[in-house]
């Protein structure tokens, strides 16, 4: 099944529309092990490393994709669209204007944008997207989400290396649904058979910008940190809630995407905190790790009020401003180890 790649700084892309159109949605995540030289030509040194890495990936691989869709996300998503329109070869490029708000006006606009996306896909690829096909895609999407929920819950009970969780989410965001579904079943079985959560390891909630290479997760394990909850886009935000089985599938998608755990790119900070508190209420943690990719503005803004509030409530919070790449991971590891030691002393 051909892939349609999407540029999404959080979880704003209605993947079910891509699936209903007969494509595999492929979330562009970049490759931190590749130099960003091609993207550096077009983006200055004060743009976030994620956007550069994604552009580098697109410049190298766009011909393998049937098309690219941008979902309105962070501050610069529209600017990146303009640059990609000039430099990235693709037969199909679409801008999906996901609204930032979640009120009645935004819901109405969301429907307009969904219909515009559907029409563009139908006209370009000569397909017909019926409500039944969209419902079927919603069903498939929910299946994946349910399985990820089950996997995710095991993090706090079993000895699941951090990398295994991130790898599962990444696979779910980049591979064909049927392939992922079967694979997740086998992972659930395997994870259930793992030993109990290792004593002495600290339980953390991970929040902030997405870091999408598994070696970072190994580093956290090396520091004695096990991520048992998160509110990341390549994480719980993707599967925390399910899409309802309403008769009108577009209405179900609108409701779903406007009620997922809020990223920093969407108002309000209070709503983002609501999910964090919900997660912290459900799962006991020893600390909170707030990670902020350098030049990722939405999370940099949020980090001050969010972390201050969590600290005021007694949570132990460490904030790391970091590169998108592993360049300074060992320095960060020193800080994390010191933080864990302080927790133990306390």
């Amino acid at each position, binding site marked *: 099944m051909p892939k349609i790649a999407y540029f999404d700084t959080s979880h704003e892309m209605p993947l079910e529309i891509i699936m209903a159109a007969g494509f595999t949605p492929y979330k562009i995540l970049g490759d931190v092990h590749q130099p960003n030289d091609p993207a550096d030509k077009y983006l200055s040194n004060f743009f976030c490393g994620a956007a550069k890495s994604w552009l580098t990936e697109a410049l190298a691989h766009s011909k393998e994709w049937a098309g690219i869709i941008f979902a309105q996300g962070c501050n610069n998503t529209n600017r990146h669209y303009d640059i990609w329109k000039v430099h990235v070869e693709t037969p199909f490029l679409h801008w999906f204007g996901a609204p930032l708000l979640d009120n009645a*006006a935004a819901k109405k606009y969301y429907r307009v944008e969904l219909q515009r996306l559907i029409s563009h896909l139908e006209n370009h690829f000569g397909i017909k997207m019926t409500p039944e096909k969209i419902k079927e895609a919603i069903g498939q999407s929910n299946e994946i989400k349910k399985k990820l929920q089950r996997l995710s819950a095991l993090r706090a009970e079993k000895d699941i290396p951090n990398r295994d969780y991130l790898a599962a989410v990444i696979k779910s965001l980049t591979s064909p649904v049927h392939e992922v579904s079967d694979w997740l079943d086998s992972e659930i079985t395997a994870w259930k058979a793992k030993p109990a959560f290792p004593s002495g390891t600290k339980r953390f909630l991970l929040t902030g910008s997405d870091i999408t290479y598994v070696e970072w997760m190994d580093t956290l394990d090396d520091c004695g940190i096990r991520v048992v909850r998160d509110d990341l886009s390549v994480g719980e935000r993707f599967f925390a809630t399910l899409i309802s089985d309403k008769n009108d599938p577009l209405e179900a998608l609108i409701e779903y995407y406007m009620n997922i755990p809020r990223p920093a790119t969407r108002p309000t900070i209070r709503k983002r905190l609501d999910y964090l508190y919900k997660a912290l209420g459900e799962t006991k943690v020893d600390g909170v790790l707030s990670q902020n990719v350098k030049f990722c503005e939405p999370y*940099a803004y949020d*980090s001050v009020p969010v972390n201050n509030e969590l600290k005021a409530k007694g949570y132990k919070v460490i904030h790391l401003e970091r590169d998108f790449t592993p360049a300074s991971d060992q320095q960060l590891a020193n800080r994390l180890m010191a933080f864990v030691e302080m927790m133990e002393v306390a």
Partner: protein
Amino acid sequence: MTKTNNAAENDSRIKLKTLPHSQDLKWPMLWWIGMEKLYRTLPWKKTAWTCAAFPIEMMWIYDIFPDHPENMATVAAARKQSQRLIEHAESMGFSRDLCSYCKTNIGAYDTKIKKTLGGISKPDIVVCTNAICDTHWKWFQIMADKMNVPFFMFDIPKWVSGTDEKTLEGNIDYVVDQFYDLIAFIEKHTGKKMNEKRLYKVLDRSMEMSNLWREIFEHRKAVPSPYSGAETSAAFFPLVVLPGIQVGINFFKKILADIKNLTARGEGTMPKGKEKYRVMWEGIPFWYRMRFMYDLAQYGVVIAFEPYTYSFAPLKKKCVTLEETLRHVAKLIMDTPYAYNLERRIENFEKWIDEYKLDGVILHENMSCRPSSAGMVDLAEAIMRDKGIPVLILQCDMNDPRAYSEGQIKTRVEGFIELMEANKK
């Protein structure tokens, strides 16, 4: 471009002629300052924080004083206060990489510095859009939460390259719907109802003010240039906070009359025969270092056009119904030149280069404004390819003096001037 105390050297410096009525900018400024005091005194009047690309007219219509954190941040920079305020905000945890306007405002509010140094008071409401950047809503929401005041945000859809008319109409519908939400929000917090008569009166004056600024820009096409970016960067103040207010119109009328007199005599802002290079300045000025604009004059450079101040004066039309008015304003909010997409930016820049007979373009790659800085490489390449003139990309910051490197900027400017000179031969 280093500051010198050498009297002889100072005597030989090229001085830009300021317009006779340029000092009259003090009247709109004093009016604005006086109005804030009045609005904060009278219990039936309200105050708001607003931002660029927000329809400020709506505030005046509802008897709300539009305070303007960005404007006050520029005051702080001009009064050499921005660095310490930015550093104060950074000490609160805000990253070095975040917007310097935002951090200046946070620092100013938290340290309670005087108004004359860029200070700002707590408003009754906070309203903003994300038409220019998402920083606006993140910043304003953080401050609204901190001050515990009601917050309203306009979500403005993005007009990306290649957007068709049908999509644009859908975008306008969304903004218009939000206008009704804004009206409900304002009425809830002011207890006042929309006065349509006042709406049209304010909008008529706003249109008049815009038209005057646009006419001023028409005269800036003259060679030599009668009015440089050094002056417009201050003079456009009424467009920022006083659209629809007579005192700003009066000021622009005087400026326009001065410019007409100057061009009728064939004179410009530079001394006779000294205007050598006409340049476009793209981006926000270095507010802490406005002397930069005057330093350019020493090389015979005049900033003949800048999209930034032009953005505040869109072509407005007279509408007869509320719905028509809201649709028109909604489109204007999305259509600001400062936020043009890459394709429209290239198209319009190339048009302005011809109209203003420009020899070069300086692009301020502003570390505090990523949306404005994205695509500058492509913009520069297109201009050099299509128009055959040099383009200088200067990486710096609008409000954070720490980003300004005197020697590096001088070297780059001089290289740019050499290119313009070579290009003329």
